[in-house]
């Protein structure tokens, strides 16, 4: 018989801090706007501070672009488009895009550290996911530059013109890549506005464009908050607007562009259903749940934020999920062992905490892990709610944080019905060991991306985008090119 009484106590062995070095990072005190190939001060002379959300220290000052600056940037892009970029052969354009991809790889360590400093995401993610994927998007689209006629057989392919692009703070450089790589490869010029809380890697990207010798004005960068974005969208000489961000702002943009010929793509919010069947590989499904909702602190539009567990495995899944969540290391984003970093901003942190309060008030049961969090900076412990209903706000609204809402289901049809009962339709996930069930579910969920037995996998060759209030248009793959070309 096992003599369990004689088992000695386990060791409390753990991991010492393993911070990534920042010695090689040289940030400027102040960054201007990048217009016509040069960094220039804003007309207003106004600057705003960007901080490290993990300790609230100021990292740099960044120019606030007004209407005049935006106009200058659009004009620069127009000039570059007419004089240089639209006339250049695809093969030549491709060379520049390849060059950008290679410089991103060369400077990957620097970019990863700055991404984690400015945005709060763990260095493991910026190092292993954000930066390599950004480079991959440029490589992928560089390949298309001289092969566009093969992407659209029988059509004459030409660029759209000047694109105004507005990107969010959750994947700062990766969103630059998603937007800029196809635009440039297809022969368009760009005015880009990064989010006000995470402008630094976009500014480093402007440096990379200089280093790559990209012709002046092909890529322009205007930093600022919502007003800058509004000025960009309002500008009458844009041929195309691409936006990734909240559904609320997306709707405003769509209204602003109504009655104009400007092309528009929107990649907006989500509230993905993540369905676990009783015949799933439970341990891997739990990994998938964790990856689905806690990846990037849950600041992911396609996060698996609504979990549906078949009732027969509910107890097992929740017990294992709790145990797994307790092993998540929350803290210094620059520590190589950190799993969950800082919430991107105070505003977002407040918003998430509001939802935690709302969930409890609605009668749901909250579980949070017991890890310690730093005293400075913005943090939310990994959390989930049980005893939730479809009518709860924490189920209906996008929280954009590490907060999961768990419901159970009995039959496949019930799972599908609940999964589709949402204004969003960006992503979804299903776990089952049975192939036929995978097909049934993936066909039954109305969402742009559905993962089977995995979650949050991204690849430049795969189109990404939503249905309903999650927006329209696709990014990545051959479908993604379509938003940046005119076909005749």
């Amino acid at each position, binding site marked *: 018989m*096992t003599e369990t009484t004689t088992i*000695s106590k386990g060791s*409390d062995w753990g991991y*010492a801090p*393993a911070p990534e070095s920042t010695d090689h990072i040289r940030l400027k005190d102040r960054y201007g706007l990048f217009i016509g190939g040069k960094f220039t001060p804003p007309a207003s002379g106004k600057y705003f501070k960007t901080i490290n959300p993990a300790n609230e220290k100021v990292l740099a000052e960044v120019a606030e672009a007004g209407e005049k600056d935006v106009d200058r940037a659009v004009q620069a892009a127009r000039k570059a488009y007419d004089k240089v970029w639209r006339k250049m052969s695809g093969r030549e354009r491709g060379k520049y895009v390849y060059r950008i991809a290679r410089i991103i790889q060369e400077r990957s360590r620097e970019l990863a550290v700055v991404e984690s400093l400015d945005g709060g995401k763990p260095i493991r993610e910026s190092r292993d996911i954000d930066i390599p994927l950004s480079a991959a998007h440029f490589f992928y689209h560089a390949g298309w530059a001289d092969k566009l006629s093969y992407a659209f057989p029988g059509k004459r392919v030409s660029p759209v013109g000047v694109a105004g692009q507005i990107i969010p703070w959750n994947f700062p450089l990766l969103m630059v890549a998603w937007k800029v790589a196809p635009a440039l490869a297809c022969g368009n010029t760009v005015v880009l506005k990064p989010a006000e809380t995470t402008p630094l890697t976009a500014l480093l990207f402007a440096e990379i464009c200089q280093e790559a010798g990209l012709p002046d004005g092909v890529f322009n960068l205007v930093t600022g908050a919502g007003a800058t974005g509004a000025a960009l969208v309002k500008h009458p000489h844009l041929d195309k607007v691409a936006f990734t961000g909240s559904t609320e702002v997306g709707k405003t943009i769509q209204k602003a562009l109504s009655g104009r010929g400007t092309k528009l793509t929107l990649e907006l919010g989500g509230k993905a259903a993540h369905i676990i069947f009783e015949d*799933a590989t439970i341990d*891997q499904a739990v*990994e998938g749940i964790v990856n689905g909702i806690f990846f990037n602190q849950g600041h992911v539009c396609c996060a698996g934020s609504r979990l549906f567990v078949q009732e027969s495995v509910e107890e097992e899944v929740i017990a294992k999920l709790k145990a797994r969540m307790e092993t998540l290391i929350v803290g210094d984003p620059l520590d*190589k*062992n950190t799993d969950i970093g800082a919430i991107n901003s105070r505003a977002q942190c407040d918003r998430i905490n509001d939802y935690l309060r709302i969930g409890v008030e609605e009668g749901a049961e909250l579980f949070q892990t017991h890890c310690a969090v730093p005293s400075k900076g913005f943090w939310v412990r990994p959390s989930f709610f049980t005893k939730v209903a479809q009518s709860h706000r924490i189920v209906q609204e996008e929280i954009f944080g590490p907060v999961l809402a768990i419901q159970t289901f009995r039959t496949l049809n019930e799972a599908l019905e609940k999964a589709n009962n949402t204004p969003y339709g960006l992503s979804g996930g299903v776990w089952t060991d049975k192939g036929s069930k995978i097909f049934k579910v993936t066909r039954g969920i109305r969402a742009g991306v559905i993962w089977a037995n995995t979650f949050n996998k991204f690849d430049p060759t795969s189109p990404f985008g939503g249905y309903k209030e999650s927006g329209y248009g696709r990014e990545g793959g051959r479908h993604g090119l379509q938003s940046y070309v005119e076909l005749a």
Partner: protein
Amino acid sequence: MTPGYFNGTAASFRTQLHPVDEVGIKERAARLATRSIKKSSKIEGLKLALSMIDLTTLEGADTPGRVRQLCAKALHLHSTRPELPLVAAVCVYPTMVRIAREALKDTPVKIAAVATAFPSGMNPLEVKLEDTRYAVGEGADEIDMVISRGDFLRGDYGRVADEIARVKQACGRAHLKVILETGELGTLDRVRLASDIAMEAGGDFIKTSTGKIQPAATPEVVLVMLQAIHDFHRKTGKKIGMKPAGGIANSKQALHLLVMVREVLGPDWLTPDLFRIGASRLPNDILMQLEKERTGVYQGGDYFSND
């Protein structure tokens, strides 16, 4: 003959199958390998790993002299580092148990013997039981048995379970480690099933490999077995031990194993009572790393005894 302990219950194993997703397991194992173990954490981790080693010699050419040398190594890892822990056990063939017993008399180092027609297990049950009884009689504290892979792969799970239960009986007070020989099982689903059977049938430890077959203790296999132990504990409250063996030769692998145990089973399992590493070359690599941490430079292999 004792009636088959598990006869007729093979069907229940089938209905309780825990499927394993190979892609997911590989990802998780790779992710756990990215934990950065530096400085104090590295030193403490390596010492902990040392205390969990089953120092092993399992060659046809083993001699009493060689076994005595191995035992000497177990008791004197490094003459200038008396503060280092002793290894957990030495692992030898049954005929060498008596030699090891003499050499390790009055020390905390345990003696493990492989039995049940190790490494192939291709003998009748009675011979395997006699093999086990002999090793225990010679003074073995622990028995490392092999499962009958032929029976298992044929789907005769009841027979496999029954055999384990009978060997466990033959062990008496000795602890039983059940070697699955994962390199012959072919899929992670089967590794999981064999783990479940071995635990249900009374094994105190489950062990990956004999060391005679490749692949052996791959991170994926270890992870699947740890998850099986986790589930068994959740269901029964019993803590089963884990022993990866085969091809674990360097410190980095050892630390990776500790990370897996810590994050899958929790700190309760970070004790030689519940986690062992079967190895022969590993101690010297750990010593080399520890000396490097102490002095800042790597020393040549000749400064560490090869036994």
